[in-house]
């Protein structure tokens, strides 16, 4: 089965990236978020991403704005995803909000349609429990920027069926991506490990062992990482990193996941990283829309 339309719930950073990738690969998307302000911002970001995509990857097509807009529908009405072939959910990392959303989707979307949860840390098996179709629920963890990262982490939940796995693999074939399949425990592989790096880097900063710049330089120049842990945390958003650590801590009851007090303090101070212009580093003003 070729996937022709995808409902994308949540038009934040990663949601925008997912829509960009779908547009570039001729898959129609129905993009849902809470209000028109968020949707208009998402629209502008997708247009910008698509426009500059061929500069960064010669394999990606040159599309004009009209073609981009034909391939995406923006809406604040969740009902509009009811005729989509596949659903990708990218909303806030909050179990109660996700639980409510999946309950709504369950009522709106035909029972054969699969749900892909693009979650940072919450268990896919737990998310599937909020539906009556646990076999049709799978986890996907896209990397940022979605349209330029050719590998994705796919999480098989306890009940995820072979048919659902085949379908999600089909989607990634259409998107030209390789999928690495892992089993389901909170944080999976990528975030379970990366959040320990980020949290410990913040402890190192808090303990005044090194400056933020030097911590990141060690990861980049010594380990060969493209970004250091503090730059990465700023990019993800410190509130999101804090929430993910809290999910890991609650899930494993292991003190190694306790959130660094400095991180919590920065979140409470409104220093959330790139999106607010200040985190471990200071950034120029937000991108003009």
């Amino acid at each position: 089965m070729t996937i022709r339309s995808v409902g994308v719930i949540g038009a934040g950073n990663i949601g925008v990236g997912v829509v960009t990738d779908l547009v570039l690969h001729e898959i129609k998307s129905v993009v849902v978020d809470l209000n028109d302000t968020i949707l208009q911002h998402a629209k502008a970001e997708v247009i910008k991403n698509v426009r500059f995509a061929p500069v960064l990857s010669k394999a990606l097509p040159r599309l004009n704005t009209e073609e981009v807009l034909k391939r995406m529908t923006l809406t604040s009405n969740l009902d509009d995803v009811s005729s989509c072939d596949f659903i990708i959910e990218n909303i806030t990392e909050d179990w109660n909000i996700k639980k409510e959303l999946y309950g709504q989707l369950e009522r709106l979307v035909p029972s054969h349609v699969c749900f892909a949860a693009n979650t940072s840390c919450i268990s896919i098996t737990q998310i599937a429990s909020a539906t009556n179709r646990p076999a049709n629920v799978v986890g996907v963890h896209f990397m940022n920027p979605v349209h330029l990262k050719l590998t994705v982490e796919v999480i098989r939940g306890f009940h995820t069926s072979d048919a659902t796995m085949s379908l999600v693999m089909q989607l990634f074939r259409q998107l030209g991506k390789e999928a690495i399949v892992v089993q389901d425990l909170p944080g999976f592989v990528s975030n379970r490990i990366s959040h320990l790096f980020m949290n410990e880097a913040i402890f190192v900063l808090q303990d005044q062992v090194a400056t933020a710049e030097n911590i990141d330089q060690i990861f980049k120049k010594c380990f060969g990482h493209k970004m250091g842990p503090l730059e990465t945390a700023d990019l993800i958003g410190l509130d999101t990193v804090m929430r993910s650590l809290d999910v890991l801590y609650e899930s494993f009851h292991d003190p190694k996941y306790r959130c660094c007090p400095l991180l919590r303090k920065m979140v409470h101070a409104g220093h959330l990283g790139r999106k607010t212009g200040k985190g471990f580093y200071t950034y120029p003003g937000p991108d003009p829309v």
Partner: protein
Amino acid sequence: MSAEQLQRVKQVLREFILDSINIRNLGDDDDLFESGIVNSLFAVQWMTFIEKKFKIEIGVEDLDIQNFKSLNAATAFVMRQNGSADLTSL
């Protein structure tokens, strides 16, 4: 366009990069992308900044990494937009 304007354009571009990516020095011909100085997320910000700051539109034919890969390349690109680039605010 004067040599003074060229230097000013380069300075504006340099300041944007240094402010954005936490490095202290940047050579005029350092390849931003090959060297890993910037990542692909920054690249979109970089091109958007050039458009907004100099009030130019990067045309489809100019969407080539060669135009943006270094300070010298981007400066030359802005200077080539002779007539359409707005340098009055520099």
